[in-house]
């Protein structure tokens, strides 16, 4: 997908992507746990910087936004509990349970240092 994005950009054009990724130092067990929660796309051992450069981008920079990621994930979980009855009525039991389970698992993975989030910027040469 990154290669496709590079081709669509004019020379000198800019790419920015905000990406959740598994900390490269995560244990095999944590890696599998995070991959189950976040889906297969986040299950790469390769750093995003490496992926972007491999796709032909230059000037790759990362701003780590894991602290804000944690704050946002916690707000999702806390306010979902706060508005539980209204959300249950809007989404139904199954969807509410799925979303809360996903958000709670994501929060736990951030709190334990397994998941991180970065905003990456790069340009097409």
């Amino acid at each position, binding site marked *: 997908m990154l290669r496709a994005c590079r081709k669509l950009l004019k020379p000198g054009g800019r790419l920015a992507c905000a990406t959740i990724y598994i900390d490269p130092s995560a244990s095999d067990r944590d890696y599998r746990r995070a991959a189950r929660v976040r889906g297969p796309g986040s299950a790469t051992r390769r750093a995003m910087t490496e992926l972007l450069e491999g796709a032909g981008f230059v000037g790759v920079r990362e701003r780590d936004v894991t602290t804000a990621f944690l704050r*946002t994930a916690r707000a999702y979980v806390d306010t979902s509990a706060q508005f539980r009855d209204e959300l249950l009525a809007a989404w139904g039991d199954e969807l509410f349970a*799925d979303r809360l389970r996903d958000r709670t698992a994501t929060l736990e993975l951030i709190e334990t240092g397994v998941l991180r989030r970065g905003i990456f910027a790069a340009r097409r040469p």
Partner: protein
Amino acid sequence: MRRTTGEEQRTIERFRPRYGGALGRAERAVERAAIGGNVGANGYTTVAQADSLVRLLGLRRGVRLLDVGCGRGYPGVYLARASGCSLVGSDLPLASLGSALARARASRPLARRAEFVAASAIHLPFRPASFDAVVHTDLLC
């Protein structure tokens, strides 16, 4: 017209529940607390981070931006409104594109410079070198 692959269909099904009808009071309250505004967000990109994307991408009037996996129009519609750039948003679930279009049409000047295309992130149906900037947020790479 290219047929949807099995993988694309699974993606559509996975995200279908996230793009239901209009948001209620509780959903808007959750989004405000988590993201910092009611902007059509589903993921983890805060409004403050979207503001930083305007600068990172050099967005301004005359710039053509592609938002890959635009969901309900965030951050693409927000970025186009904030910067004056033109926008193409792409995603697979049609329900999400309908919401994104409605968000863009809510602002008359933006409605004329925003369009949306049903396409997967792998098979983007655009000419090479046709965008000044590309953004994607919380999309699987």
